């Protein structure tokens, strides 16, 4: 139907408003019996929808023109980063291509933070023994959006969301999977973010959930350890196989099945375990005591169902086996991609019903509705008070290290028990870190790591508490952080950024005694007042930076306006630039009158 036909079916002349369209539709609908004339009803509906769309189009055309000129004049208009070409082989071996819709970009106005990412080269997936590298396209799905105009600028809350993004997408070293500490932090962030989505409105939580899914998909395979808990918490697997399954979630669900398959096949009782061990061990050649049928099933099953798992296999051994399994074919080419294209038709013939049956079933059928929050089971919530019934399994040596760390960071008379009673979330967090380190086999003989864990927990708690406290405490906390940042210095931007985004200091950085003294005093005071609570979301998500402050930041840092704007909008910038801008912003905000400065301090 064309537009003019729609208007004439409704008996209207084109420049009508939506009320007239609805009225005409209602009148015509009343005159007919939809049940006996479904086609006529469908035509009427179509005409109505088309006419309404036409009305909207006219309205937006009328209002669009002044807007366009506005945007051209606005020096703060968002800069669209060029969309990078997705490399053709971003996922080797025909792994499902992650085809996400173009970013809407609006999410950063609510959730904060995310900046474009440089292309990263991973040294392989989380557990991959082979050295094949994997190029991940630059991230454009969350370009920041600027809503401020005129002489100010709007910056968004970094908080947990930013820290989570930083940890997965930006934190160094990027060539490796998450280390145990990062993994624990990431899980912790994920748990808090999941809880925060539970507090959001339906639209916000939908956006936030998609944001997390896309972040995990983009940062695969670094995000691998987070996949299982995230999927269980958000119920992503319920979407599996649905017509409406979102692309990022379809991608993650496929990866999840692969992870589970690896987990199963690495157990000795799996029927294909021997074949798996054979193909994944290093070295060349092939063993004689592995059943060729098993190897064939495994290889074909993996290639059909979990192409990305081919990276776990040793290509030389795979090649050797292929020569044995398919002697009639030409010698295997180097690299599987060439192999696939050469023999595609042949493959299809041999992927028989047996393999389909073997692998098509879902390895573990998820329960339709998780009655247990899986994130809660991974790490005990830092919010839950320590229960006397289940004392933390701390041996005497760690206990003394913990007590020592408590005295160091909360004053001479403080012990672990004291911290437990005054600031339970801090004590829980530290104990969790120590337990994780112990589980990872990092015995803390000197007590140094425990001390650093206490330091991180204290700064994190101070930061979280300060943001949600009165103006005086806020100033005390941010002054202390400023002093710490200055001490870390501009010469170690990585440590500086890590501290800004995640309250985490790399182990080698030592703080001057005066800063430690300040942290001790402030921590002791807030703990005594019972204020030192867990990290909470910032009450605010945006703040205005007055124009004069931006001028002074320019003077102090010597950077150009576009770079400063970029940093403030979490755009791409080097670590050193970001660090110096943040330092300047913090010190300038502390000088402003509370009415103007506090909103900035509360989100920084």
């Amino acid at each position, binding site marked *: 139907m064309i537009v003019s036909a729609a208007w004439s079916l409704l008996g209207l002349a084109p420049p009508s408003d939506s009320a007239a369209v609805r009225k005409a539709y209602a009148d015509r609908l009343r005159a007919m019996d939809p049940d006996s004339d479904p086609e006529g*009803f*469908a035509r009427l509906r179509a005409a109505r929808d088309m006419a309404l769309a036409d009305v909207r189009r006219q309205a937006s055309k009328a209002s669009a023109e002044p807007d366009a000129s506005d945007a051209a004049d606005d020096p703060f208009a968002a800069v669209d980063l060029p969309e990078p070409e997705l490399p053709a082989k971003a996922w080797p071996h025909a792994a499902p291509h992650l085809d996400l819709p173009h970013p809407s970009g609006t999410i950063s106005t609510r959730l904060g933070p995310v900046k474009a990412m440089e292309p990263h080269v991973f040294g392989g997936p989380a557990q991959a023994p082979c050295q094949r590298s994997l190029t991940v396209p630059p991230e454009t799905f969350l370009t920041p959006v600027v809503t401020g105009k005129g002489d100010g600028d709007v910056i968004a809350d970094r908080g947990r969301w930013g820290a989570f993004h930083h940890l997965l997408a930006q934190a160094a070293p990027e060539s490796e999977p998450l280390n145990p500490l990062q993994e624990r932090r990431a899980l912790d962030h994920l748990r808090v973010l999941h809880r925060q989505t539970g*507090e959001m409105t*339906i*639209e916000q939580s939908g956006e936030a959930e998609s944001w997390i899914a896309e972040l995990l998909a983009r940062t695969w395979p670094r995000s691998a350890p987070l996949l299982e808990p995230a999927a269980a918490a958000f119920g992503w697997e319920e979407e599996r196989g649905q017509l*409406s399954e979102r692309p990022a979630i379809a991608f993650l669900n496929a990866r999840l099945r692969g992870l589970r398959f690896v987990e199963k096949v690495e157990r000795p009782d799996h029927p294909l375990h021997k074949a798996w061990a054979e193909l994944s061990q290093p070295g060349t050649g092939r063993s004689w005591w592995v059943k060729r049928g098993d190897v064939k099933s495994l290889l074909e099953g993996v290639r059909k169902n979990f192409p990305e798992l081919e990276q776990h296999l040793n290509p030389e051994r795979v090649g050797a086996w292929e020569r044995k399994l398919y002697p009639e074919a030409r010698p295997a080419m180097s690299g599987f991609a060439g192999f696939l294209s050469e023999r595609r038709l042949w493959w*299809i013939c041999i992927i028989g019903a047996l393999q389909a049956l073997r692998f098509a079933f879902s390895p573990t059928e998820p329960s339709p509705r998780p*009655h*247990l929050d899986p994130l809660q089971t991974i790490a005990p919530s830092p919010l839950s008070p320590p229960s006397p019934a289940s004392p933390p399994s701390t041996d005497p040596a760690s206990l003394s290290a913990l007590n020592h760390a408590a005295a160091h960071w909360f004053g001479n008379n403080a012990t672990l028990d004291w911290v437990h009673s005054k600031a339970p979330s801090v004590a829980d967090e530290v104990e969790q870190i120590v337990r994780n380190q112990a589980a990872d086999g990092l015995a803390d003989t000197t007590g140094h790591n425990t001390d650093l864990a206490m330091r991180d927990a204290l700064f994190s708690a101070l930061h979280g508490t300060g943001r949600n406290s009165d103006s005086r405490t806020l100033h005390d906390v941010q002054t202390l952080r400023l002093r710490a940042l200055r001490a870390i210095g501009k010469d170690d931007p990585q440590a500086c950024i890590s501290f800004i985004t995640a309250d985490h200091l790399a182990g080698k950085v030592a703080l001057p005694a005066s800063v430690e003294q300040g942290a001790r005093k402030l921590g002791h005071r807030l703990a005594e007042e019972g204020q030192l609570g867990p990290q909470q979301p910032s009450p605010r998500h945006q703040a205005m930076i007055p124009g004069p402050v931006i001028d002074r930041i320019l003077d102090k840092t010597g950077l150009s306006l576009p770079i400063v704007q970029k940093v403030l909008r979490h755009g791409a910038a080097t670590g050193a630039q970001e660090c110096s801008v943040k330092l300047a912003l913090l010190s300038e905000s502390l000088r402003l009158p509370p009415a103007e400065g506090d909103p900035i301090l509360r989100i920084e």
Partner: protein
Amino acid sequence: MIVGIDLGTTNSAVGVWREGEAQLIPNALGDILTPSAVHVGTDGTVSVGKAALERMALPGTATATSFKRYMGTDRRIRLGKRDYDAEDLSALVLRALCDDVRAATGETPTEAVITVPAYFNDRQRRATRHAGELAGLTVRRLVNEPTAAAIAFGLMDRQEREPFLVFDLGGGTFDVSIVEMFSGIIEVRATAGDNRLGGDDFNHALAAAIRPRLDPEGKLERLTPDRAEALLFQAAERARRTLSESGTADFALTVGDERLSASVSTEEFEEAVAPLLRPLRDPLARALRDSAMPVQELSDIVLVGGATRMPVVRKAITRLFGRFPNSSINPDQAVALGAAMQAGLIARSGELEEIRITDVCPYTLGVDHIARDSNGGMQAGLFSPIIERNTPVPVSRVHTYQTVADNQRKLSFGIYQGEAREVSGNVRLGELSVDIPARPAGEVTCDVRFSYDSSGLLEVDVSVPISGTKANLVIIDEEDRPAAGDLAARRAALAALKVHPREDAANQALLARAERAYEDHLGAWRDMVGKWILGFTGALDSQDPRSIADAALLLAANLDRLDNEAPL
């Protein structure tokens, strides 16, 4: 006469369009709501409603509740000496409701509008229709429950309304509809739901959380699982109702000669049911997405269904939408009122002439097909949607399919309903085959037309242009035709059941209440209740209306006093 019936998981209600308005008909006890419960006593006598519910946890008897959850399944429930399926039990409830209408109006209902959860699939709808037929009613239309509630809400003051959202959390199902009302048109924009989420789940969650504390020694395990479950469920229901009004409640039940009791706080309850709140989100998000409606444009969040009385649910809704919901309509009665209005519409009552209602089809409908995958192989068992979910109904759509093999002589279509990409994940509604002339692959095409009407019933036509075998009409519902003779037999079997007469319903409910009180109390209290029951049954045996009435008054007064004073 046409009646409108809300056949609910927990409670049912019936209404008629009379004197220019929808009126709900009270049952013999004077209540608008009749519990959807059926009890069969040791003598084979059937009772329905409150009397059945009161006997739910009595030892040695059988009461079926929440059987709507098994609509459209083969599951059978054993009561007394017979097995019943959900259709039979629903038919008994429908018959009791019709008796109430007959008593109130003097007319016998012959036709009905029955409401179903919007997210009921075709099989469940068909079962509901059968239940109506078993009760001797011609089902003129099945109306989606949130749509019925929207009719009641929309016609309350007949104002124009911006799009609003109906949030319908009943005993066993959860539905969401986005509805708009303008110039007398009530238009459903989108519907979504969850067939496995309702108020019952909150009871089960609470019972599961309290059970270890309530019964550390495992006394309940000595009972049959069904009975333990029933006792816990009832106790949870009582505690949940109390918690809707106060901060703590007693979770108490009596096992044999022992009383188990634990106190439960609002916080504990909220923690126990927290996992049930997240599943509320998905249907809401889906309905909003399908209707392309931003939350800010919704004018109201209308609450329907008894479970929306729970403060924890209201809190969750407030958080999800960032505003307070509208509770201006009675959540228990809106659906029945809407059904009665729909009945009036069908009867073309003058006052409703100007109203039109358009609904959507809640599920995607389509056929299975074979597709070539990216490697060139054939993949069978894929779902090819013909009518997408949330398409306005009535609707009629055609898709064309072609043969995949040379000299293929037959085309078979499996007909499915659901949202999964592979048909194995969807509900199979039927199958349809057509003979075709032998030709090379791809040369024979076939048009498949799906027509879906306002009641949610589907018709499929297949035609093959090349051979001219055009009119190959198949109505899916006809698949049950062989069962039609069966239907009469089943109706007769149900009719032969000895049912407590309606006049007797009040006395039976009272007696059941006394029996429950007997079970709930211990020692001297129990003996006293036993004596009251003996007195009352003696009066019933005398068959003298005067003395029965006196004894009933006395027993009711005694039980009231007991409820107020006893250490329950």
